[in-house]
């Protein structure tokens, strides 16, 4: 059995090398398809972790309507502090919010010139820290449905939800277009490998004829072609992984450092994700390469 596979692999490798440019084109097209599949998978992870990090902010701000009395807000603060899920509640008055805003924008003269320093137009708010990020929603709901519901104008939770919604829309669009692109590229890769194997079968037809005459089994004849197709997949995976590593180091990481896409301390791309990505490429590459050459042997190999 070992001898069998040794010979099959030797034959496949020899054919792969002899095909030269044909092999290279097949690998290149396959690599493009894998690249798109990988970018798609990575994008999912980036967006997923961004959404998670937005949700994980432990504090939420409750903004009140302008007509709300400070006494009511303070009353609410005392009640909220008693809730089990709430760790800390801070009152930010309208004026305090303005002071904070001005402080943050102290170098921007235009803003300073148009904003009055005394009459605050910013709403008062309560900044609530919860014990567990997953409790934020229930705390906000409790506030919104309780006695003080009429006082609340909006919460930062809703802002977050809007951002998340936008992210999901963008990622949905990118995903749909990448899926189409990936399908097109995979189809092209299938056809190119099919054709490469067909040409290989044609150039080796005499050898195949003799193999049949001396009693080679169907699979002894067929396997080298299928393995050759799979080799295109393996080579393309190697190529794509190198490209992705370069792309990550050169573009994605600097971008993440400057824009802080993820605020959580963990790296977005964990080791297990990298392993997953390489396995994904390998599986796609092996399946596409193996399938198209199997298909070619079925069509063009008379056994």
């Amino acid at each position, binding site marked *: *059995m070992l*001898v*069998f596979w040794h*010979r099959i692999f030797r034959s496949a490798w020899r054919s792969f090398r002899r095909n030269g440019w044909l092999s290279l084109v097949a690998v290149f097209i396959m690599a493009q398809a894998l690249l798109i599949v990988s970018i798609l998978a990575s994008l999912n992870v980036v967006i997923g972790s961004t959404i998670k990090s937005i949700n994980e902010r432990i504090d939420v701000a409750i903004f009140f309507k302008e007509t709300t009395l400070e006494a009511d807000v303070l009353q609410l603060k005392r009640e909220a502090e008693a809730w089990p899920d709430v760790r800390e509640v801070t009152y930010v008055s309208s004026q305090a919010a303005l002071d904070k805003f001005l402080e943050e924008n102290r170098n921007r003269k235009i803003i300073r010139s148009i904003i009055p320093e005394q009459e605050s137009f910013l709403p008062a708010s309560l900044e609530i820290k919860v014990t567990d990020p997953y409790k934020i929603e229930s705390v906000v709901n409790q506030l919104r449905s309780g006695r003080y519901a009429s006082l609340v104008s909006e919460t930062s939770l809703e802002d977050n939800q809007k951002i998340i919604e936008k992210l999901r829309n963008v990622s949905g669009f990118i995903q749909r277009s990448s899926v189409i692109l990936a399908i097109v590229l995979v189809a092209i890769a299938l056809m190119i490998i099919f054709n490469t194997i067909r040409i290989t079968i044609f150039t080796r037809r*005499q*050898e195949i*004829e*003799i*193999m*049949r*005459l*001396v*009693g*080679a*089994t*169907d699979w*002894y004849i067929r396997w080298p072609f299928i393995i050759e197709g799979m080799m295109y997949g393996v080579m393309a995976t190697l190529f794509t992984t190198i490209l992705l590593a370069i792309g990550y180091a050169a573009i994605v990481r600097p971008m993440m450092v400057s824009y802080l896409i993820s605020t959580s301390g963990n790296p977005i791309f964990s080791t297990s994700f990298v392993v997953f990505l390489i396995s994904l490429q390998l599986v796609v590459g092996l399946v596409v390469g193996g399938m198209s050459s199997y298909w070619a042997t079925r069509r063009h190999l008379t056994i």
Partner: protein
Amino acid sequence: MIEFEKVTKHYGTHKVLDNVSFTIRPQEFVILVGPSGAGKSTLIKLLLCEEKPTFGRITIDGKDIHLLKDKYIPYYRRQIGVVFQDFKLLQNKTVAENVAFALEVSGLPDDEIDDEVEKILELVGLKGRGNSFPRELSGGEAQRVAIARALVFKPRFLIADEPTGNLDPKNSWEIAKLLLKINSMGTTVLLATHNRDIVDLMNKRVISMEDGRLVRDKRRGKYDTNYDYQ
């Protein structure tokens, strides 16, 4: 024992074999003669399981070879050596590699293959030529390589389809003698040929075919002078 029982083969409406029956006994040497298109090559294809008869059956030791499942056909073919007029050697492999190629298919380990190849090349008179390429050989030598390759599985039957078709008289006779030698060692030989001198010199059983029919079967035959088989 190979038996053809009322074998008929059609290609579409064209009948290439018509009710052919004969028996080849173990270790026999049978010469098949007939003009081009008489059905010799079709008969060989049927025997190699490359084609199936339209009617009738071919049995080996009582077993119908066309009832074999596809997956057993390769193993069946290893029991039958076959050589052709055009040798069918791989030009990019050496003599030894061409012979070894057949054994590799069977899954024999490399060191055993080397031993076998050496022995078989000696048998066909090509000792020491293992590293030559087919283009460096004469026609007679190339056919010996093909015979060596056909013999590596120690087949019970050797089929030679016009093996001397591309050879001069001297080389033809050398190949004929080699086939007789192989036959004397116990292998049944079926030789399809146009070569009158060889048929006459061998003095073996001759089956004559014409238009798909078996017209004569003589135990000690000569080339039939009534026909111009060329």
